[in-house]
């Protein structure tokens, strides 16, 4: 018989005890899910000042993904205006990244909008004074990098964010990035290639960048050759051209060079890296 006399109180006490005991179960599960980065990051308190009361309540109520979608649409709307309202784009994507910091998508999009689109819009606009334009481009590019570096604090092993940083350092643009930093690009491509789920061509991109860093030619040649002999998609035209360029530069003996297009290697010796066998002397590092 349920709920009569003292039995009812017993039920109440048992339920109270179960309710208190479940706190440890909740705590353990929360810790486990946090470790796996499956739970959303705690909302920053200052976020309350940046969004409406209703939106903040909705975010607290577990509707963060929907709110982030809404803010992205707002950002997109500001982006498509003529001229684009970059400060509004920045504001809404900032909210998106704050709501969903464990989603690399928002960091990538935010950085791309500011570091590439906003920066380049000042390159093609041509209405503002040249000095101001240059400064705006520099600032937006810096903003793009800053966003990605902040994203890496939340997602240190995300290949997309490392790759975006590498892209920003690597690609030369007369107006926005006149002096690409190939060493930094190489480093970021390498980090990207070592992350889980990284796309296979990222290591190749790292090697391409190394090839453009003065003083690292031998390292680049060795890596390029290794990639060539791994075969598959690595035997891309850019890679083959770079290998051939270095072969000429280092006067590599013909039998140790990679074969001409479509031809079989003259001997199996050609698969041996000339800088590993025989071991290069220190002065071999100097390009000829």
């Amino acid at each position, binding site marked *: 018989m349920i709920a009569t006399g003292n039995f009812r109180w017993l039920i109440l006490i048992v339920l109270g005890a179960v309710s208190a005991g479940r706190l440890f179960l*909740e705590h353990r599960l929360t810790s486990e899910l946090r470790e796996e980065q499956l739970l959303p990051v705690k909302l920053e308190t200052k976020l309350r000042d940046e969004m409406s009361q209703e939106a903040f309540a909705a975010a607290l*109520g577990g509707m963060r993904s*929907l709110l982030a979608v809404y803010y992205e*649409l707002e950002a997109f709307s500001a982006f498509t205006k003529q001229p684009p309202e970059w400060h509004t784009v920045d504001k809404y994507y900032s909210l998106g990244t704050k709501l*969903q*910091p464990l989603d*690399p998508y928002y960091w990538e999009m935010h950085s791309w909008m500011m570091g590439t689109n906003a920066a380049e819009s000042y390159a093609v606009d041509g209405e503002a004074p040249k000095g101001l334009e240059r400064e705006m481009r520099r600032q937006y590019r810096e903003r793009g990098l800053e966003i990605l570096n902040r994203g890496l*604090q939340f997602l240190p092993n995300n290949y997309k964010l490392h790759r975006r940083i590498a892209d920003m350092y690597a690609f030369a643009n007369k107006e926005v990035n006149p002096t690409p930093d190939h060493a930094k690009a190489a480093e970021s491509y390498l980090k990207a290639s070592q992350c889980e789920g990284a796309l296979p061509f990222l290591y190749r991109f790292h090697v391409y960048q190394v090839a453009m860093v003065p003083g690292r030619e031998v390292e680049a040649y060795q890596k390029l050759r290794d990639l060539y002999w791994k075969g598959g998609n690595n035997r*891309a035209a*850019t890679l083959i051209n770079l290998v051939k360029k270095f072969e000429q530069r280092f006067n590599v003996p013909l039998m140790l060079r990679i074969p001409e297009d479509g031809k079989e290697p003259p001997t199996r010796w050609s698969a041996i890296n000339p800088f590993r066998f025989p071991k290069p002397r220190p002065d071999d590092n100097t390009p000829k």
Partner: protein
Amino acid sequence: MNAVPTTRPSANLSLLSSFRRIGVLAGHTFTQLVRMKIFYFMLVFCLVLFVSGFLLASISPDQELKLLKDTAFGVMQIFSAIFGIMAMALLLPKDIEDRTLYTILSKPVRRWEYLLGKYCGVLLVLLVSLVVMDAMACGALHAKFKFAESQMMGFYDEQKSAGKITEEDYQVGVSDALTRLREQGVRWQMQTAVVAIFLKAAVATALALLVSTFAGSTIFTILVAISIYVIGHLQAGARESLLQPPVPHSHGIPVQVEPPGVITKVFAGVISVTFPDFQVYNVVDSIVTGKTIPGGALMRMAGLTAVYLIIYLGLAAFVFSSKEL
């Protein structure tokens, strides 16, 4: 009004017949809700899918897929919780108003069996709705993925045949774009997100049932249940202030944390014990972005849900057993 006795001497008390009665009541509740045309809200869901998937402007195909997926799963979360709360808030007062409750309880049916039957009926409708919404969302996502994939391949093929890009650029571009598209497409792990949504809605529904056992009106039940739903998302903070020493925030971002005072601790204790932690079900966003929830964690989540249901349904039965009808 006469008080309905809590038990009847003629009642068949065996567990099997108890389950049978609960099953009959659940089936009746399911039919009752279906007759209330509640499945019409699926049309709204279709509309949401259509608008987010095909009408909203976006920059890239993977962005379109993400928009569709995030919206679909977000709306599934809202719909399931609201539906559970609304249904529970409506059913009990309706049975009292129609006097169906008295007819049922005058038969050899115990009060807790009646409550559990109603609850299971609502859960059944929730389950069917979620399965249908999931199927619709996955169908729309798959169709959109296929369309985006063929468009993307067409674009790269065209560029390659026109000599605008090299073979290497073609391979890199296709592999990159395909990876991005696949990340936003349909994956089996997404079904674990639907399980988490269902478990969360089951707890919200149990809470609404508890509130409706002592509430004076439907509006009161809905408002209180929604408030509890929101508070439940903050419960983790209160609990952590009790069980965990204050530490700087994770991800290397330092945050100044003051140790809580006695009053704060008492307040946090009351909140932690009274309200469920809805935050643990918020794995949905991570799963949707491509992460996988370990099987053990999912089992523990189901176990925690079972504990919540025992507590809240037990309390509901306790309150309802002594309620003057």
